[in-house]
């Protein structure tokens, strides 16, 4: 296999806060191949967005990427790269689409100016040329009448249109990698369908790699080819999208899948994962999911599980890989017994 486009090894991003060191990302390793769409799924506080920001080195103090972390992209280590070289990568080779299209755009410039600015900075082309390219790129994202729209300000556009403008900004330099952080979470479902359709189409057309970060398993299933599940700052499971949905191994992944209501498959009562995500300043020792897990026993309490190979390119951070028969004997998770399970 050719070397991957992006290769992350032992990424640790810590925040030094008054209440302690928050280990938001705590030893994450994964690859993204050229032209591949990889999804990261997890709930608030699992570290998925901090992972994305770390790749672009957008971590602000008191946060810090720890030494020993490596982010290799096109033969360069982004962790140690000089600031001016990093600026040349951001928005040029790797670009990002943010969740909130209103706050990611500057309200006092026209959207055409903002898209063109990216090309002016990175391609070093003039005002007229960059404007033309901005209009072309806006057209690619399916904005009707792009010449007129380019002259408008963000507040004059709908949420879906603004998200298309952000996609145009991300796309104008034809980057090798686009990081999309919850790109459709703020949008209505019919507009979400338009935007996901557009991303999948553009990915096919330009062969750009996409890192799709979301909490929505539906978005993952419809757009990605490989999935990473994060929990408490770590990767807990990784597999191809078909493998993951057919055979989820980690009890957290299983819990996430079962707690979602599915249209057309209504059940009397939703399954829940009891309790809440632990605090990043104080991850539990042993398995970090242990207290909320219906299978936990002594081993997960004693020993932090490694990522086990469970076959078919599928890895899982769960000791069940070693003692699979325990899956037949679920019990009440610890957290419920302590009386905080309802919280």
């Amino acid at each position, binding site marked *: 296999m050719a070397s991957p486009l992006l290769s992350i090894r032992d990424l640790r991003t810590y925040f030094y806060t008054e209440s302690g060191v928050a280990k938001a990302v705590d030893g994450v390793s994964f690859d993204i191949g050229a032209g591949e769409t990889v999804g990261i799924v997890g709930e608030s506080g699992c570290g998925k967005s901090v992972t994305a920001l770390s790749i672009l080195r957008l971590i602000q103090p008191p946060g810090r990427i720890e030494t020993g972390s490596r982010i290799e992209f096109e033969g360069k280590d982004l962790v140690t790269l000089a600031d001016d070289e990093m600026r040349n990568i951001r928005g040029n080779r790797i670009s990002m689409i943010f969740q909130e299209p209103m706050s990611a755009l500057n309200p006092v410039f026209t959207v055409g100016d903002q898209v063109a600015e990216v090309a002016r900075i990175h391609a070093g082309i003039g005002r007229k040329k960059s404007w033309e390219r901005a209009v072309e790129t806006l057209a690619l994202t399916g904005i009707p009448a792009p010449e007129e729209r380019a002259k408008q300000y963000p507040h004059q556009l709908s949420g879906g249109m603004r998200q298309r403008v952000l996609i145009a900004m991300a796309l104008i330099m034809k980057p090798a990698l686009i990081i999309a952080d919850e790109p459709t979470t703020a949008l*209505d479902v019919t507009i979400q369908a338009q935007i996901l359709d557009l991303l999948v189409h553009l990915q096919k057309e330009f062969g750009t790699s996409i890192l799709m970060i979301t909490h929505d398993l*539906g978005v993952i299933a419809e757009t990605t080819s490989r999935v990473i599940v994060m929990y408490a700052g770590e990767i807990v499971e990784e597999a191809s999208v078909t493998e993951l*949905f057919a055979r989820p191994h980690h009890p957290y992944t299983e819990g996430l899948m079962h707690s979602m*209501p599915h*249209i057309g498959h209504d059940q009397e009562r939703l399954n829940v994962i009891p309790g*809440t995500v632990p605090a990043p300043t104080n991850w539990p020792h042993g398995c970090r999911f242990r207290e909320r897990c219906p299978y936990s026993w002594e081993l997960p309490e004693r020993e932090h599980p490694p990522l086990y190979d469970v076959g078919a390119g599928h890895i899982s951070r769960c000791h069940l890989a070693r003692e699979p028969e325990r899956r037949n004997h679920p019990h009440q998770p610890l957290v419920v017994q302590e009386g905080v399970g*309802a919280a």
Partner: protein
Amino acid sequence: MTATARGGNGTAPLVSVRNLKKEFPIRKGVFSRQVGAVKAVNDVSFHVARGETLGVVGESGCGKTTTGRTILRLLEPTSGEIYFEDRDVRAMGTRDLRALRREMQIIFQDPVSSLNPRMTVGAIIREGLTIHKLAEGTAADARVSQLLQEVGLRPEYATRYPHEFSGGQRQRIGIARALSVEPKFIVCDEPVSALDVSVQAQVINLLEDLQREHNLTYMFIAHDLSVVEHIADRVAVMYLGKIVELATADDLYREPLMPYTQALLSAVPVADPKARKERIILQGDVPSPANPPPGCVFHPRCHHPAKDVACTKIVPPLEEKTPGHFVHCIKQPPTSVSWEQQKEVGGVHPPERYLPLAAVHA
């Protein structure tokens, strides 16, 4: 027949709403002259039966939240009738209205901004007890403890402040506050939208348990169609201030007849990579509610094969297509707007049954 305020199973409805309208004026210039109006809720009629959950779905700006708030008179309706147990809500004075609020409560979407950060959790829950003179002193303390336990929180939490809690826990506090006055009817306005999936499931289960134990009636407003299918008995779909489809949850999700509902359902991403899915991608955006399209509000984006000029001229009635299934569409037969009437205004396609999604979610 039209969807008026009849009880679903012969019993009198708890809440009934007829021809409800809510307009927000648009003012301009030095003299704040009114130059137009946003028709947030535009002639809506429905009822909520005792003990049922009526789901209301639709996208941003469709009027679902305004409908909920107008029923409680947190917003004053522009016109229309609202009855709660045969009492005319619109005719009520301040004192009657305050008494009514004991029976009708609301749970808000944002568990952060809907709790006063300077009040302890105990004080937040107690406030309703005091205002309605339900309990005081140690009796009130005991009631607060009981309510906290009922929503799955520890009684000790009464002395803490909202910021000490997670989103799911705050939503539980909001639920305890609504329950404190023993209401009959609760408007749940996107109560789980701000929560993570696993926590969302916990709160949905809690709402269902409480409904059973206290015989509550819910109006459950949400944009998440799968959550609504799970919790609702009947579902109203809103678009641009109108109810465009109203049916039991089973019927609506199995056989959506309004083209808008069809598109909405097809747009929901399915958490199954092997699902082969026909998707109806709607073109463009929702038109402005200040200037809704004439005729059927959905016609500019509609994909019904029989759509024609009649759809731009005739406002479709919300009419019963099959028992209990009300649809706002003159092209889905049967319709009281006859083919002759449609031809008169320029219609060229006779109504035909169109169901592109029959097997999608089966």
